């Protein structure tokens, strides 16, 4: 703790999500990053094939995987 944090003078934040007041801003990011999100979402998959999707995640050879619950 001393070496890694105090002596470096770091500021440490825990961030799990974002403030609800920033909701419009994250929508702005999404609108401005469409091409990047299409790359970040590397796979889409019917929910009926969820096992295959989990197995894919276990390989690490994916970015974000999106399920379609009606397929």
């Amino acid at each position: 703790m001393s070496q890694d944090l105090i002596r470096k003078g770091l500021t440490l934040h825990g961030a799990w999500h974002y403030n609800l007041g920033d909701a419009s801003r994250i929508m702005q990011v999404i609108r401005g990053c469409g091409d990047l999100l299409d790359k970040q979402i590397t796979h889409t998959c019917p929910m009926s094939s969820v096992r295959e999707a989990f197995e894919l995640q276990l390989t690490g050879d994916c970015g974000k995987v999106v399920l379609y619950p009606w397929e």
Partner: protein
Amino acid sequence: MKAVRISGERQAELIDLPDLEAKGEYMVVKIHATPMCTEYKAYRAGHLWQGIGHEAAGEVVEVAQPGKVKVGDRVAVMPQLPCGRCALCLKGEYIHCQYLENLTEATGYEGGNGTYAQYVLKQDWLLLPLPDGMSYEHAGMACCGLGPTFGAMQLMQVDAFDTVLVTGLGPVGLGAVVNAVYRAARVIGVEGQPFRANLAQELGAETVIDPAEEGALEQLMELTDGLGIDKAIDCCGAPRRSACVLTRRDARGTSPSSAKQAS
């Protein structure tokens, strides 16, 4: 409705659950896209789990009372079941709410609250309306795909003057790259998995360092003219490779050698 249940070690199945009914501020959302998060860890370990998933985008299909959204609205579903009344909720920090609601007590529904399902119940104020033209796939990224690292960058006020280090380039860390690129910051990644290292670079990370390689910290110092990193986001959860260990830049001019000792 159909939903996913983890039924054993590397076992998952679709099950039939009772249909949902709106109650109070809980609205029924028909889910069109469900981004997958860390549920695979429970799948791998065989933790029996019904009602999995916390990310989704869809359409409001039933309400019990007038609220912040109405039937037909396209929305992104926010996580958790915060109380909406405590000090943290009232200032927008609902993710840290200490008084989470119990869905069954609140609505009478016993099937779980997951988004690996065709419908989900959620309080109206946790449904973010989508701008026209935004796809459900993209909107779903408003949760963990972009959310945690967006929140971190809001806290750190990341901008175009910064070099941001992202340690761990999984689904959350890759979102950090997207967020940082959007803010025109310079991004250096740390990741040993080749697919993800390559993807991060496609997304705009300038360099990705393999933490298993000899001299990773020296490489980082070289890339920053000996100054080190301004701001870092740890998305890997491995203490020896964490941003805290690799970060050495500070306002007090710590010498590079102290960083080496710390690593």
